[in-house]
């Protein structure tokens, strides 16, 4: 598989997208390394670099001159070191990731989560995610970006978001301690909350959830003689690395009762994290064996599939590699971060004319030490 397989039109779009990415990268680097606008972290970091980002980073490829971003840098305070001077004084959120034991990783955010989810909103089909409808956020609560982002997405689309309490750190602790009975009870506690909301006449039509919780919710509904379609939910936005084609097929065929046009339930898988934002998937179809391919919201973020032993080199299309993420917004600059996932490099797609990643799963060389998909 090579990019020569692209149609002339798609190749042209891909080329244009590349130009836009290069321009966006130049602009972002100028912002983050300008003493007037950049963050204390990056301005200090620049002093240790053997090149001048302001002069020598002129396109996306030039970003690879930076050392890899290490997520451990995000641990601890003062978090103000991450706030670009150009954004000083604006209301700022701090979102956390990890933190089951020790100091969590923090990311400061002003508007990025709103921008990312508003962009994502425009990819959702109104037929299944009706404007003005209410949402259920069946995902993590607490200091998580996702919690506020989903609520904003719902509000942006004119609805009201109902949330549950779910502490993923406690879930990780239960797994690590092997307290399976408690884990089951906690899962049930979360699902009970969702069932209560769905049964309380809130006219909920859309939902964010993870594959695991979706499965648990569907089981709980079916035990009560109901189902996902019967509950009134028509649009599901879901995320998690455990989104396999087999699971997706199972979910569509058995929990929804068929593809969206038959069952009336549409599910869109997504991939992302607190650092990058949200990568959308191209439509998941039986014809493509329910393959799930994600595309980052370029030019604000990029996903590459790279050689695990040589992260500056992308693998060939169709080949397996490690996910490498980049983020280029005014709030955050991530010049390449090796994610704990692997997958296959995907060709550009009509709606997203840049590289994607499919078959995302925990990076095999790290899989044993990672607790994944906990909620």
């Amino acid at each position, binding site marked *: 598989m090579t990019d020569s397989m692209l149609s002339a039109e798609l190749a042209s779009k891909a080329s244009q997208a590349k130009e836009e990415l290069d321009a966006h990268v130049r602009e972002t680097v100028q912002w983050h390394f300008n003493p007037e606008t950049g963050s204390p972290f990056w301005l200090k970091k620049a002093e240790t670099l053997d090149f001048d980002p302001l002069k020598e980073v002129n396109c996306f490829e030039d970003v690879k001159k930076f050392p890899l971003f290490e997520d451990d840098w995000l641990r601890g305070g003062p978090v103000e070191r991450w706030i670009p001077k150009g954004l000083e004084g604006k209301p700022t959120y701090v979102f956390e990731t990890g933190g089951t034991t020790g100091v969590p990783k923090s990311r400061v955010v002003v508007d990025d989560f709103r921008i990312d989810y508003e962009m994502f909103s425009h990819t959702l089909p109104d037929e299944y995610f009706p404007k003005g409808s209410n949402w259920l956020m069946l995902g993590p609560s607490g200091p998580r970006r996702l919690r506020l982002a989903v609520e904003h997405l719902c509000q942006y689309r004119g609805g009201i978001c109902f949330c549950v309490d779910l502490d993923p750190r406690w879930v990780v602790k239960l797994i690590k301690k*092997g307290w*399976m*009975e408690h884990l*089951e009870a906690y899962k049930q506690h979360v699902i009970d909350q969702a069932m209560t909301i769905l049964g309380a006449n809130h006219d909920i039509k859309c939902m964010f959830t993870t594959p695991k919780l979706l*499965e648990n919710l*569907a*089981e709980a509904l*079916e*035990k009560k003689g109901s189902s996902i379609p019967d509950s009134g939910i028509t649009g599901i936005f879901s995320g998690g690395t455990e989104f*396999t*084609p*087999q*699971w997706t*097929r*199972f*979910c569509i065929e*058995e*929990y929804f009762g068929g593809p969206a046009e038959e069952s009336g339930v549409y599910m869109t898988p997504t991939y992302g994290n607190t650092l990058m934002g949200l990568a959308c998937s191209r439509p998941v179809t039986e014809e493509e*064996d*329910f393959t799930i391919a994600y595309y980052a919201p370029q030019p604000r973020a990029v996903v590459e599939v790279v050689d695990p032993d040589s992260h500056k080199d992308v693998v060939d299309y169709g080949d397996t590699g490690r996910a490498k993420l980049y983020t280029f917004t005014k709030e955050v600059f991530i010049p390449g971060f090796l994610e704990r996932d692997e997958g296959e490099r995907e060709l550009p797609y009509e709606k997203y004319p840049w590289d994607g990643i499919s078959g995302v799963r925990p990076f095999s060389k790290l899989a044993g030490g990672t607790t994944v998909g906990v909620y």
Partner: protein
Amino acid sequence: MFHIPALRWGKPYKSLEKQEIVHFATGEPIAEVSQANGGLLGRDIRKSFKAREALRKIPISDLIEMMKKAGDLYLNATLPIGEAEQTPEDFVKQQSATTGLPEHLCKGNMTKNHFVLHNMDKILDALTRGLDLNILSRGFGREDRGVTVSYQAQTNALGMVLPSNSPGVHTLWLPVIPLQIGLIIKPGSQEIWTPFRMAEAFFAAGIPREAISIYPGKTDMGAAVMTHCDRSMIFGGTNTIEKYKGDPRIQVHGPGFSKIILGEDEVDNWEQYLDMMVDSVYLNSGRGCINCSGIWAPRHTKEIAAAIAERIGPIEVKPPSDPDAALAAFTVPGAAEAIWGMLEKDMEQEGVTHMTESYGTRFIEEERYGYLRPVVAHCDSPEAAIASKEFMFPFVSVVECPQDQMIERMGYTLVCSAITNDTQFQSNLISATNIDRLNLGPIPTIKLDWLQPHEGNIIDFLFRARAFQMPEEKLTAAMA
């Protein structure tokens, strides 16, 4: 290479996720197996009542006859295996190829399973203590001694999470179907062969397809079995036991730490028992939980260890097709090396002597697999870490320990063969709760009496005795 779909209450289900299983030595693909996701069981479990309903339509006596027929088919017939067919010879070669077990041992396991199926009537009679099996079917009845009894099935289907590397465990679940309880099996990734062949033999013998589900899959599938089934059995290591112990819904089968102990009164005659000790350690490749991993005696331990080492130390690795092959391969890359590393460390401890050292290299490493040749360690006291170890190859530690400390210090023991005529010691052994199967006399630990329960009686696990009353005339009429 052929495809093996999952079975959802007897119906084939081809997953989008498949795992290739390969020959352990050559890497040659043998089959592609559909990998089920846990959610499938989450849905299917709601239909488990249909499995029991379908089985209850058939009298237990008829099911027992079907088991006999199924046993013959399993042993001799060409049966479907996924999208292909399988002769008994194919089965032996395929099972050996993926598990690393010598072919003649695979054949031996077939004979063992056949024996159990053919003697199901006697086995159920023994396990139920002579209960009229219609009482289990009906749920209540009156025993010959005139007492009204009632037994409630605790589940519609028994969940089984089976191991990858030990084809000897299947006899445990064979009595389930004739007890009119369905089966939900998550086979081991390398030993999918017995569950699928047995299921096909059952179907061909007349067992309703909706009574059996088989879900090959990853660890999440095993977890789903444990979560969704009201009764399940799991096979695993010490960690698995710790994780599930105390859960009345789950019967955990793990390492056996089986032992032979010699009492003060008989230890001087140890040479008479050498054959029995050697057989207990190495037969069936030393892989089973009933293989002996500890021989405890108050004296002569060094001589015992040396004599066993002389017998099993020279055993060589032979190809699985060799009828004299006694050792099974470790098919998981790095497994044999890791175990050997642990053993070497343990044998450095003071008071521990490696008695098989002079019989050549123990760890044999090949590109895709490894072997461990038999190891005998001598421990001059139970303090040594290796005194309480068990490995999946012929391994034994011969431990010197005063008789009055043995029971307390030897820890959990699945099978204990005690060679003693000391009635007080025998009485203490009978009372010891850390011993499961007790053989009083020179009976090899691997010699099972199929009429006796193994790690708990499956009848007690699947059925609960409860009080039941009915007017006399109605009870009599119901039983007519």
